């Protein structure tokens, strides 16, 4: 029955709405575009919900749709490039193992947004939304090994950029005391 299908869709898919919005905000840049992106994602999910097997991973499936929708929209809008879903070349950056003791939300946001979009995406999916590595791989359509190497570089770079940001603002912070 249609109402059963809607009920299942709400309990399996719509419960992930807040997570989808958080990631869409990073992909779209503002709330209005993010809402449009998420709405289109759920409409596509609804259209193919009959093919979704109950008990399998709905969250990763929704993220996969979201990313493909974002990718398609960018291509249609003539953006310079879509989302790079393949691996990034190795950056010649030393591994940063240490997290700063003190930082503000602003420091963190600046550091986070200084990462490449593909790096922000894996960090957000794994460390903010709590997806398993294999779920991230499914969502992005890349191998698990690629997720792990990209995550490792992205987390390390985030710590480094955070430390750099703190250094850059340290004189001002001292002056404010």
């Amino acid at each position, binding site marked *: 029955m249609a109402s059963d299908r809607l009920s299942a869709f709400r309990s399996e898919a719509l419960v992930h*709405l*807040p997570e989808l*919005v*958080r990631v869409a905000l990073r992909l779209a840049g503002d709330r209005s575009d993010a809402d449009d992106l998420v709405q289109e994602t759920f409409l596509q999910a609804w259209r193919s919900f009959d093919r979704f097997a109950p008990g399998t991973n709905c969250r990763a499936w929704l993220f996969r749709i979201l990313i493909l929708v974002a990718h398609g929209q960018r291509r249609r809008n003539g953006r310079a490039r879509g989302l790079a879903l393949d691996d990034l070349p190795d950056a010649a950056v030393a591994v940063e193992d240490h997290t700063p003791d003190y930082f503000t939300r602003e420091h963190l946001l600046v550091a*986070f947004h200084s990462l490449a979009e593909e790096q922000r995406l894996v960090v957000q999916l794994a*460390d*903010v939304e709590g997806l398993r590595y294999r779920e991230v791989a499914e969502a992005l359509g890349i191998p698990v090994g690629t997720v792990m190497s990209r995550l490792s570089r992205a987390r390390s770079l985030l710590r480094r950029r955070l430390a750099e940001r703190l250094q850059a603002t340290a004189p001002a912070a001292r002056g404010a005391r």
Partner: protein
Amino acid sequence: MSPECGRALGLLDSYLCDELPSPEGASVREHLAGCAACASEIQRRLRLRAELRNALDGGDVLALEARILAGIAVEGRRRRAIVLGAAAAAALVALAVLVPSTPPSSASSLYDEARDAHLMCAVRASYPSPLRPELAAEGLGRYASLWPAVAAELHAATLLSAHVCPHGSRSYGHVVLRKGEHLVSVLATDGRPLSLPRATLGQDRDGVRLSAATSDGYAAFVLSDLDSRVHSTISEAMLASVLRALAARPGRP
């Protein structure tokens, strides 16, 4: 830094994600138990994740949920085979959720009651019975599927309050949303017991009627399944009164 610390630090993030195979996980756990520096680092990484989660918060999603449900209902209507059933179900469920009602005695007393109920909510900001937000979102979503004008108003809107206003012999479902600097008010009335045979509801989207009025900073809608003449009488008079009262209200949002 010892080689053990170097190895543990390289595994810490996967350890936090519970992604390490058990022998490696156990060795990291053992190292953390005896190494204050690495134990301190894992705390800092936990804090970084928590801060990132807070910083990337997506805010309220209720209005978006309503839009999505509206879109889904519209999808359903495109499939002609289920058009009639879906529209009827949407109207009936939304009205049932938002507005338990008793029959009014006449169109004019219904108008008086509706106006007073809306004024009480919108102008006096008196909200007697809260409505669970998920029910309100569901109701709004279903209405929005019937009325594109409401769907447009829901775009990027934040739910401020949803409640049932009992007044006179009836109850009114009332939802207030904020959209930018504006308020959107949706009042639902149910006239089924008054005049219409139930079958009318399911025939097409015109089974439910909409009236809208706006002033600067405020939009009000009346949705009902009353017949068009009664609906128009009530809506015009009620909306005009509400908007006049709002315009005269000091310090309105």
